[in-house]
C-alpha cells in the first residue's frame, strides 16, 4: 500500500446557503496521477480551491501526510507543498524562463540585488532534472505554449512540492507538446510527487492517469483504478443517468447527389493552406481532422473572410462568392464558431442577450434603433432551444461555464440563419454533458439541409458527428474518408499522423 499524501475527509461547502460540496472524500497517494473528473458545477474547482486555500471549507478535515492541517490561504497551501498550474498561465512573457521560474523568489546577492547567475544555474538544474532542453535565458514569449506549461511546472518545483494540481493542462497544446508533458508528468511521478489532473479529455485520462475520482452534484461518485474501467462506464458515472448515445455515430440521410451547398476550389492562403478543394452537400456534416499547425484554423479563418486568400474560388449553391471580410462572408451565409470562445467568440463583460444579438444588429434595427423586444425574444428563444443554463438573459456571459459560453457563441451564429456553419474546436474545454448537447445541436442544424464543417482535435467527437472526414496535412487536404469506412479511432489517428 502506498503512502497517502493527502486525505480530504467529509468536505462540505456552500455558497449563500446553496450546497456545492456534500461530504466529499478525496485521497491522494504519493507518486500517483489522479484524475479528477465531473461536469461543470460538479464541484471540482471548489474542491481544488479549498485545497489551495482560495476558499475555506465549512465542514470536514484535511490531512497531509496523515497530519491534520488548516489551509486558510494560498500561502499556507504552498507551505504544505501544494502547487497549482493554472489554465491561464501566470507567466510574464517579456521575462526569461529563469526569471519567471524564480519570480518573487529571487535569491539575492550580498548587496541585496538579484543574483542573476544563481537564478540561471538553479533553473538549469531543474530543467535538466526534468530532462527538458530549453535555455533558461530564452524569453518566454519566444517559446511555444507547450514550454510555457513546462516553465510553470519548473516554477512549482522551486519550492518543495508534494502535490501538483493541473487544470486542463493540454487544452492549448499540440499532440507533440502533450506527449512531452505526459513524459514530464511520469518523471514527476517517479520522484514521488502526486499529481491531481483535471481534464475533460477521456483519452488522455486513460493514457496517463493511475486512478480517477468522479464528482457529480457535489458528491463523490467514484474513486477507482483507471485500468479497471471502460470509457463508457466512466462517462456513465460523470453524466449520471443521462448517458446519451450521442457519442455513437449514427448514419444520417441526405441527398448524396444534390448540388453542393458549399464548394471550395483550389484555395490557397499564405503558405499555410495550399490548393484546398472540397464540397459540402446540403444536410451534410464534414469533419476536418489534422494536427495542430496543419492549417486547419487558417483554412477556417480564410473561409470566413478573416484572412485574404491568394488563389481559389468559393461557391455557395453554385454561385461564386468572393468575400474579403467577415461581413461579406456573413452575407454569403457563412458563420464561424472560432476556436477560442473567450478571446474570439464572446464579449465576456456583456450579457448573454447582447452577445447573441451582436451578429444580427442590422436586422434587429427598426429605423434608427435596435428593437429591444425582438432582441429579448431571440435571446430567450436560443437560451431555451440550446438549453443554456442561466437565470436571466441579462447575465454577463463571463459568469457562465465553458459549455454554456460555447452555446452562446453557437446561438449567436444560428441567429444569423446561416447556410454554412464552420465550427473550430467546438467542444474544447467543455464538460461531457455540454459536449453531448453540442453534438446534438450540430446534427439538428444539419438536418435543416444546411452544410456543416467541424474542425476538431478530439477524434471521438469527430467520429461521432461527421458524415465524411477530410484529412489535412501541412496545408493540404491529403485524403477523405466516408465515415462508414472508418472502423476505429486508431485508424483515423493513423491517417492524420502518416505522411
Amino acid at each position, binding site marked *: 500500500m502506498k503512502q497517502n499524501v493527502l486525505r480530504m475527509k467529509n468536505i462540505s461547502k456552500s455558497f449563500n446557503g446553496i450546497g456545492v460540496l456534500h461530504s466529499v472524500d478525496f485521497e491522494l497517494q504519493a507518486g500517483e496521477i489522479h484524475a479528477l473528473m465531473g461536469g461543470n458545477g460538479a464541484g471540482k474547482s471548489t474542491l481544488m480551491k479549498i485545497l489551495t486555500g482560495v476558499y475555506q471549507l465549512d465542514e470536514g478535515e484535511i490531512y497531509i501526510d496523515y497530519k491534520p492541517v488548516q489551509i486558510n490561504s494560498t500561502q499556507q497551501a504552498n507551505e504544505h507543498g501544494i502547487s497549482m498550474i493554472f489554465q491561464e498561465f501566470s507567466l510574464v512573457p517579456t521575462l526569461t524562463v529563469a526569471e519567471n521560474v524564480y519570480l518573487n523568489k529571487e535569491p539575492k546577492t550580498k548587496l541585496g540585488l538579484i543574483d542573476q547567475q544563481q537564478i540561471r544555474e538553479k533553473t538549469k538544474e531543474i530543467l535538466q532534472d526534468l530532462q527538458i532542453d530549453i535555455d533558461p535565458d530564452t524569453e518566454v514569449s519566444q517559446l511555444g505554449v507547450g514550454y510555457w506549461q513546462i516553465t510553470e511546472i519548473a516554477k512549482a518545483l522551486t519550492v518543495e512540492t508534494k502535490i501538483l494540481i493541473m487544470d486542463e493542462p493540454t487544452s492549448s497544446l499540440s499532440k507533440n507538446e502533450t506527449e512531452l508533458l505526459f513524459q514530464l508528468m511520469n518523471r514527476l511521478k517517479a520522484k514521488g510527487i502526486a499529481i491531481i489532473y483535471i481534464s475533460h479529455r477521456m483519452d488522455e485520462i486513460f493514457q496517463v492517469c493511475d486512478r480517477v475520482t468522479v464528482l457529480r452534484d457535489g458528491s463523490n461518485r467514484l474513486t477507482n483504478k483507471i485500468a479497471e474501467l471502460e470509457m463508457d462506464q466512466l462517462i456513465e458515472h460523470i453524466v449520471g443517468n443521462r448517458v446519451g448515445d450521442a457519442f455513437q455515430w449514427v448514419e444520417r440521410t441526405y441527398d448524396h447527389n444534390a448540388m453542393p451547398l458549399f464548394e471550395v476550389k483550389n484555395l490557397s492562403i499564405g503558405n499555410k493552406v495550399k490548393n484546398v478543394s472540397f464540397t459540402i452537400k446540403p444536410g451534410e456534416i464534414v469533419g476536418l481532422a489534422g494536427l495542430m499547425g496543419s492549417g486547419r484554423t487558417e483554412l477556417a479563418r480564410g473561409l470566413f473572410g478573416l484572412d485574404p486568400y491568394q488563389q481559389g474560388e468559393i461557391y455557395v449553391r453554385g454561385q461564386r462568392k468572393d468575400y474579403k471580410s467577415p461581413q461579406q462572408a*456573413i452575407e454569403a451565409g457563412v458563420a464561424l464558431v472560432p476556436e477560442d470562445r473567450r478571446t*474570439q467568440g464572446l464579449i465576456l463583460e456583456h450579457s448573454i442577450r447582447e452577445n447573441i*444579438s451582436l451578429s444580427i444588429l442590422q436586422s434587429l434595427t427598426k429605423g*434608427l434603433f*435596435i428593437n429591444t423586444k425582438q432582441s429579448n425574444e431571440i435571446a430567450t428563444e436560443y437560451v431555451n432551444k440550446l438549453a443554456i443554463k442561466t437565470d436571466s438573459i441579462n447575465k454577463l456571459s463571463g459568469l457562465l461555464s465553458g459549455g454554456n459560453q460555447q452555446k452562446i457563441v453557437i446561438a449567436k451564429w444560428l441567429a444569423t440563419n446561416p447556410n454554412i456553419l464552420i465550427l473550430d474546436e467546438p467542444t474544447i474545454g467543455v464538460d461531457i454533458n455540454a459536449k453531448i448537447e453540442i453534438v446534438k445541436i450540430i446534427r439538428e442544424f444539419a438536418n435543416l439541409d444546411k452544410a456543416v464543417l467541424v474542425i476538431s482535435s478530439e477524434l471521438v467527437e469527430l467520429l461521432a458527428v461527421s458524415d465524411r472526414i477530410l484529412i489535412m496535412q501541412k496545408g493540404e487536404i491529403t485524403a477523405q474518408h466516408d465515415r462508414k469506412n472508418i472502423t476505429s479511432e486508431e485508424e483515423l489517428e493513423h491517417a492524420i499522423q502518416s505522411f
Partner: protein
Amino acid sequence: MQSKVSKLPVKQLLSIDWRKYMVYIAFVVVFIFFAVTLQDQGFLTTNNLLNIIRQTAIIAIMAVAMTFVIGAAQIDLSIGSIAALSALICALSLQAGIPIIFSSLIGLSTGVVIGLINGLLVTRLSIPSFLVTLGMMIIISGVAMWITHTAPVPILNDTYNFLFGGGSIGGIPILFFWMLVIAVIGHVILKKAPFGRKTLATGGNENAARFTGININRVKLLVMTASGAAAALAGMLYAGRMSSGRYTFGEGDEMSVIAAVILGGTSLFGGTATVIGSVIGSLMIGMINNGLIIMGLDVSQQNVVKGLIIILAVAFSKKAIQR
C-alpha cells in the same frame, strides 16, 4: 459555480452592481454636504446652481463623446487643443464677415477633420490612440498659438454670443440646452442604436467583435471623429461665452473630461459605458469646484481636494464591485 438568485429582496439589493450607481450616490452625498454646510453662503440659490451648469456644460458635452471613445477602448487627449483651435478659427471666420451658420460649420469641421486624422492614424497605421492624440494635442495647441500669435480674437456678433453660450432662455442658460441635446443624442445612440453596441463590442473584445463581422476600424474612426466634433463644439461654446477666441481655451480639459467619464462609471478599459453617468460625473466635478470656491479655498487647495474626491469615488466604486 452556479448559484441561483434567491427571491429575497436583500439578495436582490446585494446583487445590484453598485458601481453603476456610485456616481449618483456620490453626487447626492456631495450635494447634500454642500447644501448643508454652505447654506448661508448661497450654494443653493438658483443663481449659483445655474452657474454650476454654465461652468460644467462644456465639459459634459466633451464627456459625452469621450464616453464613446473610452467605451471603444480608445482615448483622446487632443480635445482641449481642438477646442482652442476651433474657437479661434470660428472667431476668425466671423471676423471676416462670414455668416454665423457657415462660421460655425467651419469651426465644427476643424474638429471633424482633426478627429478624422486621429482616427485614420489609429486605424491605418495601428498607432495607439494615446500616442496619436498626445502628438496631435501638441501639434494643434502649437497651431492655435501660431495662427494669431497668441492674440485673442474678439467676437462682436451678438447673435453668435447669445446662441453659443452667452445667452439664456427663460432664465435657463443656453448652455444647458446644448448639453441636454448632446447628452440625449449620445445616450440614445449608445443604448439604442446599433452603433452604440458596436462601439462597446469593439471596446469589450476587439477580436470577438471582428470575428462577429463588425468593422472595428470604422467604429474607431467614427468615435475619434465624433470626439473631434464635440471638442470643436465645446470650443465654439467657450468662444460664445467669452465673446472671443483664445488659444488658452480648453487647456487641461482632457483630464477633467476623462475623470468625469470614469467617475460616471465607464470602464477605462472599454466595453461598458454610460452617457448619463458621464454627464453626472461632469456636473459633480463642476459642483465640487463651485462648492470649494464658495468655501473660500484657493486654487491650490481646490486642486488637492478635487483630486482626493476623484480617487475616493473611484476607490469606492471598485470596492462596491468586489462586494
